[in-house]
């Protein structure tokens, strides 16, 4: 009887500890996703500002390239996307902002209603991390944000 009591206590502690770790892990993931979204929106703002400006802004060019690089590193560090999705998303993002009318003296202003492909490039970032979390068997907690 003595051993059964201790056994139940240990098993109970193990389950409780495991659930706590999963909950903390999920919190960290969600926090990383929020930061990533903020970075992506900030990058969108810079890209729109750059491409709608009538003159070339070299400082903004440096900022945009650095932000894309950091966004990529953040996704990698927090393992928010699988390798193939990450390559695809970052490549599309970089091309949509920096392939044409970028880093050039013949820069011209695009109109506000002109479509910038960067929007479609980073939309998957909002969905895939959730998928990653699900794949890691982290069950959503009640009231948790999605």
């Amino acid at each position: 009887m003595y051993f059964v009591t201790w056994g139940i206590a240990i098993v109970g502690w193990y389950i409780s500890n495991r659930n706590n770790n999963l909950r903390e892990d999920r919190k960290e993931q969600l926090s990383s996703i929020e930061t990533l979204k903020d970075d992506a929106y900030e990058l969108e703002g810079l890209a729109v500002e750059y491409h709608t400006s009538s003159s070339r802004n070299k400082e903004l060019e440096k900022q945009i390239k650095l932000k894309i690089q950091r966004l990529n590193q953040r996704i990698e560090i927090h393992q928010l996307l699988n390798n193939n999705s990450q390559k695809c998303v970052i490549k599309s993002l970089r091309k949509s902002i920096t392939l044409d009318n970028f880093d050039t003296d013949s820069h011209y202003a695009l109109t506000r209603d002109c479509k910038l492909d960067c929007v479609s490039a980073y939309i998957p970032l909002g969905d895939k991390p959730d998928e990653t979390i699900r794949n890691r068997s982290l069950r959503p907690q009640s009231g948790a944000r999605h």
Partner: protein
Amino acid sequence: MKVVNIAKDFSKYPAGRNKADGPYCGELFRETHLEPSMQDNKELTIKLDGTRGYGSSFLEEAFGGLVRAGHTPVKIKKLITIISSDSSLKEEIFEYIDEGGD
């Protein structure tokens, strides 16, 4: 095999397509570092890490420009090895090599 570290041997701020766009553009990088090895059929390793980011226009002009200059994608891929911690850059460069003539 020759090794070119872009950040050390070219610039930490590679930018632009043509010489009119800036002093460290894709055209200049292609002419000074890529073309000589391609002409001599010598293998070349390019290290991309260490710069403050790349614009696609720089990458397209440097690597896609090799195809427009008359080198075949097969030859380019055989001679040039890309090393980068950002695998999306490597993939993008190979895309430009494959589509360079378009």
